[in-house]
Structure formats: structure tokens, C-alpha cells
């Protein structure tokens, strides 16, 4: 008998929101029908998991244990997958990935360039766990870190372990997590609260969604450990309402954890009490700002307030509160389970561990990539992302969402960590990474972000409310070819005012898209204003005919230019 037949294989269907949108559930149904038809239920398992990150290839399946990956599937492919791969262990060549340069077929996950260069300590569990089952998480070693923390370590010990691991906040600013925890632990006041910020609002970023959908228990375990470390007895997970699947999975996971004695009174028989509550956001970008988020949990309008006092002193209902991002919480069980030494061995001197980026834009392989801190942008874009498609050239990379900035193509060899990015004029942010090629107009990009911020500003403080609107209007004039030199000066001065005078992080960083594009691509602004020309050919009012590249044909712009001449 053939050896391969003896192995019980599992077909993993990745059905996060992105997978479902491209038809993962149909693939799942087709596979199940095929397995039933063949009566192979005892030899082939079917596992529906969260997202593995390779969004470009959805819907996809992975056949374990070999890790054979098939992407861009149709329900009709189910028969071949079950029969040839799951039962016989053979690769279906027409469904497998090919390396574009050589045309060689690569079936195994670890050989595919997109996965090869990654270091997936967080995301790998998404492929191993059915998010609807707590048993799956426990089977792969989940909640082991919790027992270690609760029974073998003191609260200070947990904080010390996190400190030694060098974990820094993954929400954007990179504040050392252990320091933040220590402040909250030392703060006077009772009760204390902890919050998981899952109001992921940056356009094009979805790392947190993938973690919550695919492996909610990791976040819950991290939060229980954090609560133990800080002496909190109540926690909140604030998920944005636009993530229905995440809400469903997290809600179910909390229920399961509670019924297993992992939440509630006397966790695992210890003296520690902790419970979690799921709060849904009502769809405001500003709710991601920590003070606004807390106002929202308290049932008020999501308006930020002036800091200090910081949440660690006076947060939710005026009590000491700790607030961390989803990815930060998900890292905690890893640190406790595998040890701080292991964690600290990953990454650079000051930035430890891995970071998930959502790699989108003009790149061949879009998706979530998890890399150790300190890899270069080039590695991410070219090796993992497969480079810029259609023979175009890389122009810039936008990192950190609307609060972040643009890095020009010349800086692709920068090592990605908090300090380097900040020095280069951008931020790590929560991990959004938008690749831009030469067909992107930087003025238009800034206009897009400012329009987004204008809509999403809460409207509380005057500089942000009025400033974002005026900047958005000015950029609109530039892209429409109706701006003049004075407008550029006004834009720059406005950007500075909004940056210095605004109340919260949203306003203070709202000008970043303008400031960073002005630093690196000032000539584009000048082309829009002086020559009424959009070098990238994006701005409609300034679009040129191919034979007369300098002549604008947009009506408004033309009129304006002629008026300017006469």
C-alpha cells in the first residue's frame, strides 16, 4: 500500500472576510460535497480558518500537513483537490502557484516567495485554528502561557518578562508596553480597566481584523495576562462595527473562554478574577484615538479629550486604564510561552519581534505580511510582494495610514523599525503599507487623505475641524488646476498650524500626508500649480493629450491658465 494514503490530510479553507468575499464558503461547500460523495470523511479533514494573508490568491486552500497551496480557486476545482491531493498527496499542477520569472511550479507554502521571506509567528496560527473552536487553540498550545503566568509568575514577573522581550506598542507610536503596564499597575485608583483597541480605521490596513477573525483567543489570552499583570478585573475589546465577522468570532470566543473558566471569577481556580466585554464601534475613525475610544465605551460621543491626564492615571470612568492594540495583545502569549529571550532575538536592537504589514497598492502580491523588525522595504516589496506590476517603477511607499507619511523610492533600503521610519519622516503606524508606482499623483494622494481626515475629524477642536477642511479644499484646487503660488504657501502654513494647535493625535498628524509629500515631491506640487500639469496623469482636470504633453485640456485648468497669461 502507498505510504501517502495512510496520512490523514486536512484541507484548510481560509475564510476570513477577504476569503469569504471571493467565494471561500462556496469552495468549502464544494469540498465538503466532494468529500461526502467519495465517503472520504475519515481520511480527509476539512478545516475552515481565518485569513492567511495572501489576499491576492483568494479563495485558496492549503492541504496539510504538506502545506500544498492552491489559490484563485473555483468550486469546480474541488474534485481535483480532494481526489488528487487530499487522498493521494499529489500536486494539482494547474492549480498551483508558479514563480513568474522561471515558470517553475511551487506547491508548498514555504517555497512560495510570498511566504518564504516572512516570519509568521502570529499569523501562522491562523492556518491551524478554527476560530469557532477554543479546543483548536488549546490544542496548539493556547492558554499555556496563561497558566504559566498565573501560577508560576507574579504580576511584576509578567511585566518584567514583557520588558525583557522589548515589546513595543503596535498601534503606531511604539511606546514600550512594559512601561505602560507598569504605570497603570502603579497608578492609584480602583478598579482598573484594560482595553483592546480594535478600531482599525486606516484605509487599506486590516492586520487587526485578520487576527481577531482568525485567532481571537490569542488576543483574549494576552488580555488576561495583561490584566493579571496590572491588577485589572475588567476589560473591553472595542471592535469597529464594520468588522461583523470579527465581532462574531470575538464574541463567541469570549463566551467559550468564560464557559471554560478562563474568564470570570477565579480563573483556572486561581484567585484572579477578570472578565471581558465586547463593544462595537459605530463607525468613526477618531474612535481609534484612545481618549475618544474610552468616551465611546462610556456611552458618550467619541470626542477625544486633552491629555494629560493619561489613561494610565485617569481613563475609563476616571479610573486607571491601559489601552493596547490588538497585535500588541496577541504578542503577549507568545512572549510568555516561548520566553522573552526568544522574542528579543527577533528584530533589531530597539524594535523587537515581528510586525504585520498590510501590503497593498501597486504590488503584485497584496496581502498581510509578517516580518521581523528590521527587514528592508525592498525585501518586502520585491521579494515578498513580487515587485511593482506591469513593468512600472516604484515611486514611493506610504506607511502608517493617514497619520503616516510617504517614503520615496530612494529609501527602499531602509530597515523597518520605529526609529528609522520616524527619522525618514513617516511612522510605523499600525502597519498599513501602500506601494505607489509612477502612475500615482502625490498631490492627489494627499488630497485623498485630507478628504478622508476632513470627513473623519470629530469636529471638536477648531484647528482640526476647520484646518482639515481648508487643506482638503486647497488640495482640491491644486488637482483641479485652479490654485496659485499663494495657495501653496497657505497650505504649508495651515499644515503647521493644524499640526501644533490640534487637540488629539488625529489633528496633530493630519498634515503629515502633505508635509511628507512636500518634502519629497515638491516638484509635483509646483507642476500642478505653475504648469497646470499632473506629471502622473492622474488629475482629470489636468489630463493631457499624448502628443502635447504640456498642454492641459481640462476646461477649468485651461481657462485658469489663459487668465493667468493675459
Amino acid at each position: 500500500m502507498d505510504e501517502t494514503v495512510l496520512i490523514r490530510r486536512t484541507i484548510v479553507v481560509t475564510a476570513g472576510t477577504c476569503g469569504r468575499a471571493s467565494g471561500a464558503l462556496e469552495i468549502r461547500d464544494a469540498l465538503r460535497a466532494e468529500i461526502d460523495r467519495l465517503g472520504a470523511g475519515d481520511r480527509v479533514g476539512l478545516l475552515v480558518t481565518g485569513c492567511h494573508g495572501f489576499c491576492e490568491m483568494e479563495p485558496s486552500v492549503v492541504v496539510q500537513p504538506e502545506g500544498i497551496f492552491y489559490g484563485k480557486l473555483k468550486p469546480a476545482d474541488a474534485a481535483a483537490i480532494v481526489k488528487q491531493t487530499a487522498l493521494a498527496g499529489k500536486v494539482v499542477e494547474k492549480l498551483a502557484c508558479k514563480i513568474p520569472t522561471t515558470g517553475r511550479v511551487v506547491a508548498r507554502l514555504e517555497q512560495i516567495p510570498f511566504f518564504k521571506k516572512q516570519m509568521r509567528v502570529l499569523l501562522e496560527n491562523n492556518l491551524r485554528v478554527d476560530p469557532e473552536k477554543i479546543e483548536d487553540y488549546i490544542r496548539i498550545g493556547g492558554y499555556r502561557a496563561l497558566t504559566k503566568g498565573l501560577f508560576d509568575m507574579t504580576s511584576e514577573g509578567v511585566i518584567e518578562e514583557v520588558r525583557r522581550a522589548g515589546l513595543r506598542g503596535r498601534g503606531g507610536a511604539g511606546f514600550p508596553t512594559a512601561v505602560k503596564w507598569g504605570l497603570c499597575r502603579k497608578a492609584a485608583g480602583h478598579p482598573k480597566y484594560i482595553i483592546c483597541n480594535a478600531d482599525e480605521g486606516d484605509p487599506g490596513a486590516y492586520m487587526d481584523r485578520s487576527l481577531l477573525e482568525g485567532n481571537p483567543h490569542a488576543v483574549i489570552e494576552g488580555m488576561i495576562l495583561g490584566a493579571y499583570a496590572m491588577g485589572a478585573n475588567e476589560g473591553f475589546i472595542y471592535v469597529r462595527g464594520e468588522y461583523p465577522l470579527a465581532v462574531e468570532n470575538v464574541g463567541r470566543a469570549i463566551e467559550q473562554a468564560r464557559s471554560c473558566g478562563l474568564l470570570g471569577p477565579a480563573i483556572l481556580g486561581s484567585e484572579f478574577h477578570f472578565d471581558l466585554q465586547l463593544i462595537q464601534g459605530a463607525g468613526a475613525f477618531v474612535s481609534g484615538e484612545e481618549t475618544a475610544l474610552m468616551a465611546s465605551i462610556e456611552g458618550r460621543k467619541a470626542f477625544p479629550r486633552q491629555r494629560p491626564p493619561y489613561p494610565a492615571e485617569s481613563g475609563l470612568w476616571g479610573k486607571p486604564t491601559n489601552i493596547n492594540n490588538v497585535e500588541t495583545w496577541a504578542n503577549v502569549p507568545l512572549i510568555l510561552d516561548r520566553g522573552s529571550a526568544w522574542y528579543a532575538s527577533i528584530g533589531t536592537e530597539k524594535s523587537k519581534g515581528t510586525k504585520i504589514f498590510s501590503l497593498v497598492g501597486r504590488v503584485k502580491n497584496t496581502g498581510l505580511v509578517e516580518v521581523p523588525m528590521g527587514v528592508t522595504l525592498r525585501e518586502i516589496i520585491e521579494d515578498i510582494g513580487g515587485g511593482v506590476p506591469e513593468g512600472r517603477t516604484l515611486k514611493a511607499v506610504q506607511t502608517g495610514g493617514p497619520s503616516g507619511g510617504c517614503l520615496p523610492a530612494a529609501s527602499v533600503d531602509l530597515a523597518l523599525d520605529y526609529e528609522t521610519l520616524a527619522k525618514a519622516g513617516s511612522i510605523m503606524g499600525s502597519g498599513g503599507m501602500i506601494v505607489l508606482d509612477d502612475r500615482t499623483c502625490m498631490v492627489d494622494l494627499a488630497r485623498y487623505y485630507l478628504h478622508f481626515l476632513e470627513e473623519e475629524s470629530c469636529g471638536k477642536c477648531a484647528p482640526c475641524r476647520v484646518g482639515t477642511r481648508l487643506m482638503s479644499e486647497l488640495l482640491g484646487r491644486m488637482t483641479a488646476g485652479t490654485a496659485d503660488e499663494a495657495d501653496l504657501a497657505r497650505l504649508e502654513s495651515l499644515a503647521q498650524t493644524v499640526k501644533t494647535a490640534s487637540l488629539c493625535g488625529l489633528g496633530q498628524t493630519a498634515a503629515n500626508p502633505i508635509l511628507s509629500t512636500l518634502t519629497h515631491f515638491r516638484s509635483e506640487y509646483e507642476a500642478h500649480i505653475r504648469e497646470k500639469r499632473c506629471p502622473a496623469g492622474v488629475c482629470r482636470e489636468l489630463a493631457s493629450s499624448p502628443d502635447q504633453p504640456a498642454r492641459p485640456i481640462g476646461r477649468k485648468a485651461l481657462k485658469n491658465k489663459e487668465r493667468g497669461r493675459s
Partner: protein
Amino acid sequence: MRITIDGRVLETSGAPTILDAARRLGISIPTLCEHRRLVPYAACRICLVEIAGRKLPAPACATPVEEGMEVITNSPKIQALRREVLDLILSEHPSACLICLEKENCEEAKSMIRKTGEPTGCILCPADGRCDLQKVVTEVGLKGLSHPMTYRGSGVRRDDPFIDRDDGLCILCGRCVRVCHEIRGADAIAFVARGSRVTVGTSMGKRLLDVGCLFCGACVDVCPTGALTERAVRYASKFEEQRSFICGLCGQGCRLGLRLRGGRPVDVRPEDGSPNDGQACVKGRFVIGDLLGHPKRFVRPMVRRAGVLVETSWEDALAAAGRGLAEHKGKTAVVCSARDSCEDLWALGRLSRDVLHASSVRLAEDSAAYLLGCPDGAEIYAPPMTVDELSQARIFFIFEESLHLTAPIFGVAVNQALLKGAKLVLVGDGEYCLDRYAAVRVKAGPAEAGGFLTSLLRVLINKNNSHDRGRPAGFESLRQVLRTLPPDSPTASVKLDRIVGFLEKRRPAAFIFGPRFVAGPWGHRNAALLWNLAGHTGGLYVPVGWEANARGAVEIMAEINRGAFPRSAELNKPRALILAGPDAAFKRAGEEFVVALDAFHGDAAAQADVVLPRTVFAEQEGMFVNAEGRLQFSSAAVTPAGEARLIRSIAADLARALGAGVPALETRDAAFKDLIGAVPSLAEAIRIVRGNRPALIAGKGFAAKGFVDIPDLDMTFDPAAAFPLRDPDDYLNFPTALEIKSLRTARRR
């Protein structure tokens, strides 16, 4: 703590904000969203200052000072930043009146033809001349605007009584939203929408009438611009002077400022300081102007001739009154009002006692709240209590009172405490404004509440059986009485346990009740129960009088009635009546002669033989004792309407008409001396007030008095036989009471 602001050093204790500290040093920092009574908001960003060692400038209003902090408030950089921020604010606000080149000479020279409409500001702005933004523009020194102007408004909303709202003039400082929530607890307005579309509005854009607004006017008072204005005075001329007086429309004794132009009232604004500290209610804020010049005012005396009341002169009317009263000397009854000042009541008392030898002198209103528990009228229980103390209470028991309507300032204090986490137990069978805040709601009217209070008292007294020391008088007998009663039902026990749980954790408690709760056959029992409960829990015993001088009237009535009147049954049917109180239910029955001292045409006055026009509260000076027991002096803010006279002068005139002038009533000073000579509690209070300290007229308190007997513990009541309980506004007898009532009906709908 030691901090440096602009090079000047300040030693502070506590944790003031930079703004507080700067003000203490006399350094001016411009502000817009900041307000003395509100939590710092830091939204306008006008008060930004530089702090050494911090990357970004910080708002002075919301930044607490720290040891060794170095603050710079006026560097060129900060001044430029303020100008830029103000520039941004003004790009959303009509600015013709703010940065007009002709601004300097405009008022005197009228050098511009000011035709700019409301959207662009200028003279038609309702806040022109009293706008905070105008002051800030001058202080910041903004000379021109650099951004295109946007009009954010959607027109003036005029679909509510009293208040006009204009989004176009709003700078979103949030003062109105915060005062509505933090101080008044009405939560009628809030920020709606987001970003550049954010406005101050109501739920679903409804009218204020439909969202629980109480029209207290606090939002109008704090609005720095013309966005929220009082409709009646929207286009009124600017006032010339502001005169302070004590509001006479309820028992709170709010200090209000009447603004006048050419001696005529323009509008009314609440004044700072105790007891109301800048707050008022719909009556005080919006209706006093109308009240003073109401078309139904009596402006000349009237005499009934051939069955019809006709206007006449004072001499004529007084002669007619004198003739009529002289016939019935000794058989005359006098009805006074607890709304009137101590001097007025004393004058009427002197007239009745010494000239008319009246058969009875009584108050038109039910002052049961103060009188009960002391049937002889000789001793008043309510111990001293201030609004500030009330706002420190941690649990409230409110009986049958809609505080926001009957005692708005106590309502404010209760709201402050509730926001800080106090609990509310609401007892009553109606619907109340505070319903939504109640932790426990007991559906029981004045008749049934006795059972609830008795059970509560029994549980509490049985609970601390163990401490025997320092137990006030009457404890043992009370415990014995309570033991004889049947046990509580299980459902009642659950509710009681919850309340007792609150009482154990939260101190002090406050027991607030009004006349409605202690009127009627059960009144004495309810008052005694509350007294014992408040005493036993160490809580505040808070009777809420509905009338401006209810507390003082009780003191004076006690003094006047002390043994000086014949009390035979025959005399209880008076032959003549002096009606100085607003008895809306008055029906003439067998009286041969009725003199009415009234200010407004009404049913009572229509039945009188002689009507003598009297002044109302803002037109006369006098002493009032408010619901706290606080003695306050009111001054005359306007001249009396028509020929109206003070009650004191009318009493003196009547005495003279009866041929027996009372020298003590002839002059103001003589009357005053006479009064304080006769009423010792007032004399003591006045001594304290003259020493610039607040004086509270108060009873002995629980420690001295101890537990009191509870009458009729097992009494069963027939609610149908209850007193006809009237609306508090009926007692006002003012035409506007009707208007306020229709407003309240509209709100319920």
C-alpha cells in the same frame, strides 16, 4: 508647588490649571470654550501656551500645573499661533463686525452704512456688543482673515418658545452642551454629526420642546456668541444698567439681574454667588420681563360702584376701604401670602393685630413643609442646610417633587451629585423629570408612602441595634412602636434591602420633600417619619417651600399669631376679608366686605369690593428667606407699575384710613426696626448678614430635638378624601403661570 509664568513665580497649593494660576498672577490669557463652572474642554485652542520642555503648546485651561513648570503665555510664536487658530474659527463665523476696518469709529461716527445681513454679522447680530468673540479678536489682535469664508448655518430655528438657535453663529465651543449636561442634567442638546458638519443640535433634529428641554436658559447665558439667544430680546437695544433682585417666583430665592434701558426692563440674567450661582429657571430667566409690564396688571385702585369695579384715585379707594373695614372691626380675616417679603407680612400683621383686631391672620398657601411637626407653630424643625451641602449628598430621597420645576436650584445640586455617582430614590405616584436617574422608584403617593417610610425606618433601626451610646431622645419608644407593626411583604423587603444597602455605603443622605407630600391628613405622619429617618441616618432634612418667603412667613406668622387673637368659634366666620394672598380658589361666601391687595386681574380680585394695586417682587425691596433658610435682601430693580404701592405703605394707609395710624409702619426704617425687634430669629440672622456672612434661619436639628412620635401609624387613608392638591404654579396667580403650564404640557406631549 512653584511655577513660573512669563518669568513671574507663583507658589500654589492644590492642582490649579495654568489658566487659574495665570489669572491669580493677573496675566490675561484669551479663552473661548472655558467657563468657570464647567469641566475644561480644550477645544477652542485659543488659550494655548508654551511649556518649557514640551514639544507642543498646551491649552492653559486644561493643563494642570506641575512642580517647576515654566510657562510662556505671550511669545511671538504663541501669539501668531493664536491668530492663526482664531483665523480658522472665524472662517466659519460671520466676521464683518469683528475685523471691519471701520470698527473703531463705527459706533460713534457710523462711518459705514451697515447693511450687511445676519449671515455676515455686523449690527444685526443679536450678540453685537456682548459677544465674547469680539473681545477675543481684540485681545488676540487679529486684523484680517486669510481663509475663504464658509457659512455653516441652516437658518435661524425659531420653533421653540423663548430660545432662537442659529447654527451660523455657533463656534462649537460646547459650553451650551456642557452646561446642559454637567450643570442642569437635562441633556437636551448635544453635538450631532462629525467633522466639518458637526453642529449643536437635538436628537433627530427635533424641537427643544420634544427632547426634554426645561428652558432654564443656561445655554443662552453661557453662549459666547449670538448662536443661542432669547427671542424676546433678540433685537432689543443694549441694556444700560443691571440691577440685582431676588426672584419671587419660587422658594429658591435666586439672585437675578434685571437689565434695564431707559428704566424699562430688557431681560433678566442670573447672577453669580449663592444660592443660584449663575443658574436660573424658565420662570426667572424668561418671564419676569413680561410679568412686570403685563397687560393684566392693576395700575390704579378700583372700587365697586353699582356692582362694577371702576378705577378711582388712591384717596377715594382708601376711604372706601376704611369705611368698609371700620364696620367689621374685630370680625375681619386677613389672608397673607408667603411670597411677600418679611416687612410686608409684618406690616399686614401689625395692621391686623393692632388696628383691625382681626379674627384670623393666615397664609394663602400651604406652608405645611415647615409647619408640620410643630403644630403649635412655635418651633421649626428644618435644620440648617445649603445648596452646597445638598450637592455633597451621596444618596437622595425625593418625595413627590419635580425638582427641576418646583426647586430648580436644588435640582441643579442634585444633578451635580448624581453625576458624581450619587443614587436617587424617587417616591411618588406621578411622572417626574428625574425619573430617568432614579436607582429605585417607589410608586406611592403621599398617602401610601407612609408604609414605605415606616418599613424603611424599622429596618434601619433594627439594623444598628448594637450601638447604645449617644442615642437621641425618643429612640426606645419609637422602636417599641415599630415592633408592634406587621412584617413587610417579601417583595417590599427586596426593595428595602437595596435601599438600605445604598444607605450603608453612601453618606450623607438627603430627604427632599415639598408641600404636596406633607399636605393633607397624612402630612403630619409623613413629616414625622422623614424627620426620624433623616435624623437616624444623619441625613439632610430638606423641606422645599414653593413660595419665595415660605420660611420667613412661617416665622412671622408664628410671631403674629402668638396668643394675640380671640379664638372663639363664632369669629371663625369673618364678616370682612383683606385678601393679600393669591388665593386662586377663593369663593366669596358670606363676607360682606372684601378688600383685595393684588397685582393682577384675576378671579379673586374680581369678587372684591375694593382693589388696591400692589407692587410685585422686582419693584420693591425686602427681606426674603429662601428654601435653604438663607436670609436675603432684595432691592427694587424697577419703578412700580402705574400707581401700585408697597404692601407696607398700603397697610400704613389703611391704618390711617381707619383712624389709627401705626407709627411703626410709616417709614421704611421704622418698620424694619419694629420687625427685627419683634422676631428674634430674624434679628439674629440680620446681625450675621451685616457681618458679611451668610445667615441661615434654621431649627434646632436632630441632635437637640431627637426622635418625634409618629401619629396615625396604622391609619388607613381614603385618597379620594385627600386635600385638593394644586399645581405649584396655581399659587403664583400670575398670568404667566398659565403660559408656563402650557409649555409643560407641550413638553410632556
